[in-house]
């Protein structure tokens, strides 16, 4: 649907370059990157709102690189919604139709339809200043969707919302997207949001795309330490391959020997996700190849789940549900066994 080829833009301090993206019709595509990575600028370049130094933007088989923004049929929703403060909700939504000289009856029908989909029929007469964050977000969404853009760009649409609203809006975004089939590019710095929403995800680092893939690929096979950290893989370790035993590669990490399924050699960096580690009071009888005794060195309570750090050494961060935590009766200094599969270890 939308293709970005070799895009390069100037961000002042650095360049965003070699950006190549092909987004399918109806795909929900996430661009993930830390603050200051140029995510907003990327969207604005796609929408024709920021100058492009090199590269092309195509929608289907039509190049739009040189088109002015009002002719691109690309909608945008900003983080703080950017509703026109001097217009009512209804006039905000009608703005795009008016600009495109949509006949009155038709405009009314379109507004009614989109307002229904987004669920804001009761807000039409209100002024934007009186809306809550979630309501504003929906109005901004309706305003962008009512003009039936080919592509919708979302610039951190949920990060200004409080946690509860954010979760609800994530769910509603998924639902709205499933009802109005269009390509979405959603930029965010929140990994969980990316995982929750994206069909595919691209991670930006230092002005380039570090990895493109499905959420599952990011969790299981981060291409670099940067991506692994960003994916909140809490265990990133250094080790040295010392040999092979029973088909498993042995990796020495400061005395402890891990068994992994890798063909790497010499010094390696590896990652292990906290949910792949099983904690128990007794050594576990299972097919998992790694099982070690350690001491609980830190407990970070997150409500529903709890992060338990177990020191062998080194430290391993594990996640367990509150229920499991209560059953195990863990405390700082307790001795526990941690168990994980050889395949859970990912070597960069």
């Amino acid at each position, binding site marked *: 649907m939308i293709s970005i080829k070799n895009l390069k833009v100037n961000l002042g301090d650095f360049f965003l370059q070699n950006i190549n993206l092909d987004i399918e019709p109806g795909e929900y595509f996430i661009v993930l990157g830390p603050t200051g990575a140029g995510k907003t600028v990327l969207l604005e370049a796609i929408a024709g*709102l920021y100058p492009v130094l090199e590269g092309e933007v195509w929608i289907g088989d039509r190049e739009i690189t040189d088109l002015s923004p*009002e002719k691109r049929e690309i909608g945008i929703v900003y983080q703080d919604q*950017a509703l026109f403060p001097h217009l009512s909700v209804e006039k905000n939504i009608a703005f*795009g139709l008016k*600009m495109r000289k949509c006949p009155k009856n038709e405009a009314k029908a379109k507004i009614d339809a989109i307002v229904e989909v987004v669920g804001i029929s009761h807000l039409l007469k209100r002024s934007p200043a009186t809306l809550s964050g979630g309501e504003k977000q929906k109005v901004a969404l309706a*305003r962008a969707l009512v003009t039936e853009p080919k592509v919708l760009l979302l610039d951190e649409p949920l990060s200004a919302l409080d946690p509860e609203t954010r979760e609800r809006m994530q769910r509603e975004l998924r639902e709205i997207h499933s009802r109005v089939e269009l390509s979405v590019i959603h930029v965010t710095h929140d990994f969980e949001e990316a995982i929750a929403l994206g069909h595919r995800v691209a991670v930006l680092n230092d002005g380039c795309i570090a990895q493109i893939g499905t959420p599952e690929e990011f969790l299981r096979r981060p291409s670099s330490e940067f991506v692994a950290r960003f994916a909140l893989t809490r265990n990133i370790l250094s080790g040295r391959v010392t040999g092979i035993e029973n088909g498993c590669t042995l990796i020495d990490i400061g005395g402890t020997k891990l068994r992994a399924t890798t063909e790497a050699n010499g010094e390696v960096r590896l990652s292990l996700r906290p949910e792949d580690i099983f904690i128990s009071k007794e050594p576990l009888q299972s097919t998992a190849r790694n099982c070690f005794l350690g001491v609980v060195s830190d407990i970070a309570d997150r409500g529903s789940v709890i992060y338990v750090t177990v020191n062998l050494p080194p430290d391993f961060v594990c996640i367990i549900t509150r229920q499991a935590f209560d059953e195990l009766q863990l405390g700082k200094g307790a001795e526990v066994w941690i168990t994980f599969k050889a395949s859970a270890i990912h070597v960069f």
Partner: protein
Amino acid sequence: MTKMSGWKKPDSMSIVFILLGAIMLLFIFAPPLKTVFSSSPGTLWNTLLEEDVYSSVLLTIFAALTATLIGLFLGVPLAYVLARHQFRGKRFVEAIIDVPIVIPHSAAGVALLFVFGSNFLFGKILNGIGIGFFRSFTGVVIAMMFVSVPFLIDAAKEGFKAVDVRLEKVARTLGASAWKSFFRISLPLAWRSIFSGSVLMWARGLSEFGAIIIIAYSASFLGWSPKVLPVLVANRFDFGLDYAGPVAAIAILISIITFIVLRSIAYRGEKA
């Protein structure tokens, strides 16, 4: 058990600052107030009925208004460009805009003569299309505009800066051309600043003396040949303070009242 916290007891700094501030306010407000109350309402009214006074009031108000309208037409676009674009030398351009505020007013009059006088470029053009400059309404308008337009440009610039540029960007993606986005989004949202800048420009034009006395001691206007108010005041002062007082009071009243009324319209409904 109701009591106020220690925080509410003003500290020594607040007391000193409020005191010094009050002196400053007194210094600013006492002279115009004293002038206004030095003449009885009857005297003021009779003075206003003199032909050279009311013709002067009309000339001054109307010329300042004309200057402001031209200033809006030429100054608002400049303000928008300065608010939205970054370019080399922008600082310098912004400094140039404030130049009319800082050059001596009589020198400004001389400078305008150098450009608009009948022997000079623009003056020749004006003359060619039958518009006089020296001792003319046009001259008064140009002098007022020169000294007062920086106020409008600066205020409009701040107004546009305060409009989130992403509102314009969203408007563009929704199908608005640059023009439509300017007239439907930027301008309505910045109007408050532009209006209050216009009020300041208008009032500042009203107050100009130095540049005008060089260019147009008096100007032909609606069949009269009035002086602008500030010139009239100075002119009457040649005959003494008692004679100049009422006219000065009228001039002060007109400018302050319109200024405060229009300004409060501009800020109506907005929080302090």
